[in-house]
């Protein structure tokens, strides 16, 4: 070997590790940076075979590519992730130093001999910085996520508060108008009767009593709905699902409302499966059915038709109450199930509503795990749908 080692001394001035070997893997040069990183001095290594000093380099994954470089082949890279210890080196905290190592060749012009130049760059701090950066990024993302969740909770809480406020307003509105006015009328009529009872004939008294009776029925219905709705709001309503045949329940309700429909000359018909078992609270579903069928009769002109049908859809029974009545505009549909908008319409025979029936229906259907919706067109009639879970014994 005729190469003057002094030529390589300049590699002592660079911040990377440099080792130069000959074609037999003998160490010709070992720079200061490698001495610091490995605690091995050039004096002790000079002339020794690299593969003897670092026996792991005899493994094919090292020796094959390095030999190829020494034969004039392209440079090879040993990355820190795939080769953790080309030159074993440790930090003061005993953690391994991550060295990115490249082996390339250099043809010496003096004797045409090919030498191997092994250079090592310290990637340890870069790796730490990346890990730290990722940790900070993940932490920031987590914080953003938590903040988003908190904001979402706040929005939900705000929504509930708005709903509660609307509920309170609705309650006061019902008390103020729907209850106060008819009860006020009751009081006036009764005062009149009481103060001057002797002056009225039997026929006069009957004339007073007839609208009172009608009003009392309406008030009773309103109070019943109000009570049900109040129970859904205070969560004191017990939903106790049981298994029952929805067809039987529809037929029972049809039978109860047949007289009302006949009186108004509205045809009440059904399209039902023989048996379809559902799993729901029978009392609340009875209320829903009765409300929807009563509404359908109410908004249908004489000689019109109301059809109640039931069919199986996925894991639910879908009940449809369809009428050929007055139908609704989109604007009206939007108000139907909302507690924050007061909405009531007189029936085709001026039947009064409470404005609470459909809201109660929605609460009940949803409490049973179903959903309720409407399809309607003004002048063509409406279809109210609701679903309830099927029993798994069908």
């Amino acid at each position, binding site marked *: 070997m005729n190469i003057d080692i002094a030529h390589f001394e300049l590699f002592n001035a660079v911040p990377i590790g440099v080792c130069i070997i000959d074609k037999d893997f003998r160490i010709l040069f070992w720079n200061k940076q490698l001495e610091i990183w490995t605690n091995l001095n050039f004096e002790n290594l000079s002339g020794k075979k690299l593969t003897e000093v670092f026996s792991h380099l005899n493994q094919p994954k090292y020796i094959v590519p390095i030999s190829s470089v020494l034969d004039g082949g392209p440079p090879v890279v040993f990355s820190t992730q*795939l080769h953790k210890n080309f030159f074993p080196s440790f930090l003061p905290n005993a953690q391994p130093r991550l060295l990115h190592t490249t082996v390339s060749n250099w043809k010496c012009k003096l004797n045409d001999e090919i030498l191997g130049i092994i250079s090592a760059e310290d990637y340890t701090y870069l790796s730490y910085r990346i890990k730290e950066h990722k940790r900070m990024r993940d932490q920031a993302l987590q914080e953003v996520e938590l903040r988003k969740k908190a904001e979402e909770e706040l929005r939900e809480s705000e929504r509930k508060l708005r709903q509660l406020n609307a509920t309170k307003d609705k309650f006061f509105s019902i008390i103020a108008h729907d209850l106060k006015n008819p009860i006020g009328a009751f009081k006036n009529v009764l005062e009149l009767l009481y103060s001057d009872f002797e002056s009225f004939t039997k026929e006069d008294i009957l004339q007073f009593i007839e609208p009172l009776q009608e009003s009392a029925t309406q008030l009773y219905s309103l109070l019943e709905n109000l009570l049900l709705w109040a129970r859904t709001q205070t969560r004191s309503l017990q939903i106790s699902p049981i298994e029952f045949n929805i067809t039987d329940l529809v037929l029972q309700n049809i039978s109860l409302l047949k007289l009302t429909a006949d009186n108004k000359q509205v045809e009440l018909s059904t399209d039902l499966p023989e048996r379809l078992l559902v799993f729901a609270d029978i009392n609340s579903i009875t209320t829903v059915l009765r409300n929807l069928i009563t509404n359908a009769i109410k908004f249908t002109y004489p000689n019109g038709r109301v059809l109640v049908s039931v069919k199986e859809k996925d894991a639910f029974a879908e009940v449809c109450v369809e009428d050929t009545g007055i139908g609704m505009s989109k604007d009206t549909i939007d108000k139907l199930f909302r507690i924050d908008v007061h909405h009531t319409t007189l029936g085709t025979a001026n039947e009064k509503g409470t404005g609470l029936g459909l809201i109660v229906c929605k609460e009940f259907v949803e409490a049973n795990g179903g959903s309720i919706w409407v399809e309607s067109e003004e002048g063509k009639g409406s279809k109210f749908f609701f679903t309830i879970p099927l029993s798994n014994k069908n």
Partner: protein
Amino acid sequence: MVFTNIHLDIFQEMINIGVGRAANLLNSLSGKHVSLSVPSIKLFDYKNLINELESISKSDNLSCVLLIFSGEISGSSCLIFPTEQASKLVLAFTGIQTDDLDFDEIQAETLSEIGNIVLNSLVGSIANNFGISLNYSIPLYVTGNLNQVLSSEISSNQNGLILYARTHFKIESLDIEGDFLFLCKLESVPFIIQ
């Protein structure tokens, strides 16, 4: 010496062998099946090379490992794919299980080694088959669009014709697609084939 169709056929065959070896190596290192298209070999001047490169990918986020060589023929060879797929390839090699597909410097460094192994196989095979010795650069990891990643090659070949070979590869199980490109100055190719 004139570059003839026979030269083109021989060159295509050599590329085919080299890319096949590189793909086999990628296959055995990743443990995944690598499928290859038939190499397409074309001759371009500087302007048409840029047009061709623009037609391959318009992405501004490509990862490329580039090996530049000189000697009896000079040019460069590279392995190119979208950066998010580069991350998947590195994870497949290192066996690290993570959903984090961020491509950082440490992954880039690992990709340099993977690209280096594959490109050495490709260029080494071509050099051996032609019986020529070449000087090689240290493999470079470059990101950007195709014009940026091949800027050194493009700028050094503004005059004369460039022989261009492209082979598309797919590692379906990792959902990775990319290209092997081999570009060299045409002038010396007929001599080495001779």
